[in-house]
C-alpha cells in the first residue's frame, strides 16, 4: 500500500470512529430526552412529587424521594471527597513527600480507582453489620465519598503537578509557608481541580452499586441521615424492572433528570474552569 493510500485510510478510520461516538451519544441522550420528555409533558410534576405508598406497583405519585436522595447523598459525599482528595493531592507534591512515597501512594490510588464500586458497597455494608446499624443515608454518603476519592485525587494530583514550578518558587521566594504555597498552587491548578471535582460528582451521582447496600432501595421520602434512602440510578433500575408500564416509563423521566443534571454540571465546570484559567500563568 502506498503512503498516501495509507494516510487516506487512516483519516477515514479516525473520522468514522469520531462519528460512531457522536452517534451513540446522540442516540442515548436523544432517546432518553425524547421518552423522558414525553412523560414530563403528560405529568410535569413527576420529579417533584413524593411517591405514593405503592409507587413501584401502580406508579402513583412521583419519584421526588430519589431526586432528594441523590442530592442529599452525593452533595455531602462530594464535599467530603473534595476535602480529602485535595489534602492527599497536596501531600503527594514534592513539598511534602519524597518521590518514592508519592509513587507508592499513587499505586494504591490506582488500585482503589480500579476497584469495582460494588466492592465499596459491600465493604461499607460489612461495617454497617459490624456496628449493628441499618442501611441509611449517611452510609450512602460514606460509600460514595470513598468511591469518588481516588478519582478526584488523581485529577487534583495531575493538575497540581502541571502547575508551573515557578509559581511555587515565587511563592516561597516571597516568604510564604508550605501551606500558603499549597493554597497558591491549588489556585494555579484550579481549572484542573474543578474538572476533577465535577468528574467525581458526575461519577458519584451516576453510580448505583455503592448505594445499593449502604443507603438501600427505599421507596419513601428520605427521613434523615440515619433513615434509609435511595438514589436515581437505583430507582431507574427498579422502575425499568417493574411490571407496571407507567412505572417503566418513569424510568426515562428519571434518566432525563439524571442526564440533564450531569450535562448541566459539565457545562458549569467548563464555564467555571474558563473563568479561573484567566488567572493561570501561561494558560
Amino acid at each position, binding site marked *: 500500500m502506498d503512503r498516501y493510500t495509507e494516510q487516506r485510510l487512516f483519516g477515514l478510520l479516525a473520522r468514522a470512529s469520531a462519528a460512531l461516538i457522536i452517534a451513540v451519544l446522540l442516540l442515548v441522550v436523544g432517546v432518553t430526552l425524547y421518552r423522558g420528555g414525553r412523560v414530563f409533558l403528560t405529568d410535569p410534576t413527576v420529579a417533584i412529587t413524593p411517591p405514593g405508598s405503592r409507587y413501584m406497583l401502580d406508579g402513583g405519585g412521583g419519584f421526588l424521594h430519589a431526586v432528594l436522595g441523590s442530592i442529599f447523598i452525593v452533595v455531602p459525599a462530594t464535599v467530603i471527597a473534595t476535602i480529602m482528595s485535595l489534602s492527599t493531592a497536596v501531600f503527594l507534591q*514534592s513539598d511534602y513527600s519524597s518521590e518514592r512515597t508519592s509513587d507508592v501512594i499513587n499505586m494504591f490510588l490506582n488500585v482503589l480507582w480500579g476497584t469495582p464500586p460494588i466492592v465499596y458497597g459491600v465493604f461499607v455494608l460489612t461495617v454497617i453489620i459490624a456496628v449493628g446499624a441499618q442501611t441509611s443515608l449517611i452510609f450512602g454518603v460514606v460509600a460514595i465519598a470513598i468511591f469518588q476519592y481516588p478519582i478526584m485525587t488523581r485529577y487534583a494530583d495531575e493538575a497540581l503537578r502541571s502547575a508551573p514550578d515557578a509559581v*511555587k518558587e515565587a511563592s*516561597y*521566594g*516571597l*516568604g510564604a509557608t508550605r501551606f500558603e504555597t499549597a493554597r*497558591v498552587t491549588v489556585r494555579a491548578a484550579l481549572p484542573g481541580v474543578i474538572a476533577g471535582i465535577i468528574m467525581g460528582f458526575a461519577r458519584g451521582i451516576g453510580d448505583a452499586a455503592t448505594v445499593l447496600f449502604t443507603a438501600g432501595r427505599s421507596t419513601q421520602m428520605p427521613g434523615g441521615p440515619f433513615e434509609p434512602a435511595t438514589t436515581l440510578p437505583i430507582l431507574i433500575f427498579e422502575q425499568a424492572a417493574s411490571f407496571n408500564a407507567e412505572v417503566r416509563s418513569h424510568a426515562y423521566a428519571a434518566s432525563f433528570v439524571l442526564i440533564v443534571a450531569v450535562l448541566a454540571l459539565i457545562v458549569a465546570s467548563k464555564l467555571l474552569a474558563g473563568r479561573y484559567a*484567566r488567572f*493561570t*500563568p501561561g494558560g
Partner: protein
Amino acid sequence: MTHDIALRTEDLEVTYTGNREVTALNGVSVDFAANKLTAIIGPSGCGKSTLLKSLNRLHEIQPNAEISGDVYLGDESVYDTDEPLPEIRRRVGYVPQKPTPLPVSIYNNVAYGPKIHGDHSKAELDDIVETQLRKVNLWEEVNDRLDAPGAELSTGQIQRLCLARSLAAEPEVLLCDEVTSALDPISAEQVEETLADLKSEYTIVMVTHSMEQAKRLADDVVFLYLGDLVERNDARSFFENPQNERTREFVKGHTAVEYDDADGADESEPESTTAQTVSAE
C-alpha cells in the same frame, strides 16, 4: 573595600545528590555589599543560580540538595538560626527567571507579601500596591485594571509586577535570577532601568548571562567557574583590569565577540566558551 556588607557566604558548598552526584558550589566565600548591585556571572552550569538560591535557602524546595558552610545576613546566620524559614525568605526576596504571576489579580500579586507577613488595613494595602507599582514604573500602565489577572499582562509587565511583588514584602536583599533573559529587548531595557533605580535603596544580587548587562548595571561583579569563585571585584576593575587569567579570558571572549542575550552559544558547555575564547584570540 570599605562599604557595608549586607550578605556574605562562608565556605558554601552545595551538592545535588540525585541520580548522579554533582557539586554545584565548591566552598564559596563571598561578600555582597549593602545598597549595591552585585552581578554574578559565569558560564552555564557554573553554580550561579545555586549560589543565588542558597542565599535565602530557596534551593531547599527541590529535593536532594545538600549544603555545608553558611550564609550571614548582617551578623545573623541564615542556616544556623531559630528564625522560621519564611521569615528569612521575606528578608531576602527572590525574583524568578521566568516571569511568573501568582494566579490572582494584579492588585493581589503585590499585596500577597504584605498580607501573609502582617495585618494591614485595606487603605494600607492600597497604598503599598500603588507605591510598589510606581517604583517599578508599572502604575501608569495598570492602575485602571488592578483587578485583572496578573497573567493577562505582557511578559515585560509581568516581570516588573514580580519585582513590585518582591519589593512589597519589604526585603533587605533582593535576589534576581536572570530577570531579563525571557524578555524582548524593550521590556528588558525597562526592567534594567527599574533595577538601576532600585539599587541605591536595596542590596541587589543579580545572576546574568550578559556581560553587557553586568557592565551597565553592576557595582560589583562575582565571577564563578565550575562551582569555584574565581574573582570578585568592583565592576570597573573587573572589566578593565581582571586579576585572574580565567577572568581575563572570559571577559575578553565575551566582549571580543558580540553575543546575543538569548544566544545558545552563550549558554552552552563551559568547554565551548573556553574554545571560543581561544578562537577569538
